């Protein structure tokens, strides 16, 4: 299917990308690589431990916030 129609943004966001059988991982890896080129990240190094998922998610959000701030501070070329 080359064109899909959606009534709402939510419907569009939830629509799965249709991938031929067996190509899923390759497409996933390419998508991640593309994402990395568009928005390169800087991560801390090492091992961090969490008592609960909520703690892990908060830590992830802090790293994301730092990356967003860094990218916004970088002048566009």
């Amino acid at each position, binding site marked *: 299917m080359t064109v899909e129609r959606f009534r709402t943004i939510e419907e569009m*966001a*939830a*629509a*799965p*990308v*249709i*991938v*031929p*059988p067996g*190509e*899923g*991982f*390759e*497409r*996933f*890896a390419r*998508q*991640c690589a*593309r*994402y*990395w080129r568009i928005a390169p*990240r*800087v*991560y*801390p*190094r*090492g*091992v*961090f*431990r*969490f*008592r*609960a*998922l*909520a*703690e*892990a*998610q908060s*830590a*992830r959000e802090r790293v994301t916030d730092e990356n967003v701030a860094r990218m916004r501070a970088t002048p566009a070329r």
Partner: protein
Amino acid sequence: MLRVLRAFDREGLDYVLIGAAAMGFHGVVRATEDLDLFIRATAENVERLKRAFRAAYANDPNIDGIRAGDLLGDYPAVRYYPPSGDLYFDVMTRLGEAANFETVAQENKEVEGICVRVATPAALYRLKKGTVRPLDRQDAEALRRRFDLQEE
């Protein structure tokens, strides 16, 4: 990513992918920054994990910070940022009271000769539908539609 999955396979790690990578294997594709996995909660298996990471990341000394005492005790989630800096790993032994390596339905996938353990679409749906992150709820809806899963 393949280098790590190959190391998991070679070390005989008991694990199952549960995040966006698992969805990718099922043909539901979105980008991610991390690999989420459950591992079997035994000290021997944590050692396999560490050996696999050491093999994949040139004996990064930070790997010593992954401890069975944590993963089997009060810290069921450990995040490892490897020196490559391109992705990180969320390693879990349990999620809440019910979800762990033993309770997540799994299947084998193969990529470039590597056997990869992946949560089934239904298992991923169950893990994701009840979480608070909007992205996970969106994933759950995509899985439900793709695999015609029943709402629970």
